[in-house]
């Protein structure tokens, strides 16, 4: 059986700058993979190549055995949800409205049913009371939870998280990580770019250290954090600790 997600020698350059230089990794259903690495190492680009917000130059990415470049891009994105660093909520729609848009327009679910599904997913992220609030009326942590509910409601096979807590005040990070931890326990397949080592350590099945456009080291968190094989990994983790 094909892996849910497989990178095969993926390359991507922006102008003269090679951002991804041959990435080949894979993950299965219910896996939680956390990608770490210094800024500029290509983590976000790697994520964006999966749902083709960035079109990669060479190599292949397969979703359940099928090359993403061969798929209809909208159909692909229906199957792969994404949560953004900057939330990117629709400012003119309530929390519920943010969730229903994809349901009514992409999944063609009737309005009433869409509301029900939206409320269900808002409850999942602990925001039942905020369904009628507009983004500007929510805290950062609440906004990101709406972002997660919006992605969840589409019933994706895979969820991408692009530094979901980097824009949050420290005291708001916990509530978002808590939701993500819950999703992992429910068996959601998640590819997470994050600087939250604690989260990676306790939730991830696999941690990938990306450095300068290549996978520098990859393994289960206990191995990668406790006994890194490469000097570069040690160095990076050391910088984080201090």
């Amino acid at each position, binding site marked *: 059986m094909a892996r849910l997600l497989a990178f095969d020698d993926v390359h991507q350059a922006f102008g003269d700058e090679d951002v991804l230089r041959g990435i080949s990794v894979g993950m299965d259903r219910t896996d939680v993979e956390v990608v770490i690495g210094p800024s500029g190492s290509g983590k976000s680009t790697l994520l964006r190549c999966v749902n083709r917000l960035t079109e990669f130059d060479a190599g292949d990415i397969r979703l359940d055995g099928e090359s993403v470049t061969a798929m209809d891009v909208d*159909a692909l*994105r229906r199957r792969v949800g994404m949560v953004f660093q900057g939330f*990117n909520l629709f*400012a003119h729609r309530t929390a519920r409205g943010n969730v229903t848009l994809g349901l009514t327009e*992409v999944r063609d679910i009737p309005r009433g049913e869409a509301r029900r599904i939206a409320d269900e997913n808002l409850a999942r992220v602990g925001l039942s009371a905020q369904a009628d609030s507009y983004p500007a009326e929510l805290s950062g942590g609440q906004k990101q939870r709406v972002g997660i509910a919006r992605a969840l409601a589409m019933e994706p096979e895979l969820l991408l998280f692009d530094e979901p807590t980097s824009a949050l005040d420290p005291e708001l990070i916990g509530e978002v990580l808590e939701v993500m931890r819950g999703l992992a326990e429910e068996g959601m397949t998640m590819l997470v770019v994050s600087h939250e080592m604690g989260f990676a350590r306790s939730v991830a099945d696999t941690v990938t250290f990306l450095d300068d456009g290549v996978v520098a080291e990859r393994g289960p968190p206990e191995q990668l954090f406790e006994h890194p094989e490469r000097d570069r990994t040690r160095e990076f983790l050391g910088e984080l600790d201090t």
Partner: protein
Amino acid sequence: MDILPLQAGDWAFVGTNWWILMQGLYVTVLLTVGSLLLGFLAGFPGGAIEVYGRGPLRSVVRGVGVLLRGTPIVVLIVLFFFGVPWPDIGAVPLGGLLPLPAFEINGQALLASTAALGLRSAAYQSQVFRGAIRSIDEGQLEAARSVGLSKLEAVRHVVVPQALRRSIPGFQNEFTIVLKDTSIAFAVGLAELLTRGFELFTQPAGQTAVVEIILTVSAIYFVLTFLTNRTLDRVENRFAIPTGESS
């Protein structure tokens, strides 16, 4: 000291001829509404194309916009009237709204003026919308795309509703400009409000009433502008996106 030596007889002259001004007002309102509508229908897509369009289509829209904005409106109206083979729809009957006597206007002149004022307005409205669209964070569009909306759907459901709200102040401006520029339509013989006022004080009986007539006409323009802007203010408040600051 009597600063404004306005005379009762001249006001009486304005009073007995009020219906002539009302006929002009009718044409002014017709031209303004028609032009703004055309300007919106052509200007909104125009603004969207300037932001999202590619290649030749965008170049054409931009080029036409620059041309329309750079040409004096009187030139446009004359060009549209004489340069476009309009269907001969003859005279268009108007009025009959009692007690306003019915009257006729030249149909071709109405078409040409509405087209000229409307397309020129479209060129300006497209810039208002372009700015409004640009002001909306790119990430929202990306988020909409990432749940599977096509680009067109994403623009329609996420960008357009927000851009429209942000366009209202610019649209108020545009309304005021189009309203006043309708007076240029007399170049092709359309007797709108200002022309009617002009007709009044260039007839021998009205020659001493210049100031009274111009004040009356100005007052009518002022009331129109004031009421419309107030209405648009209300629309803006009604559809304002909560900012969270008040709650």
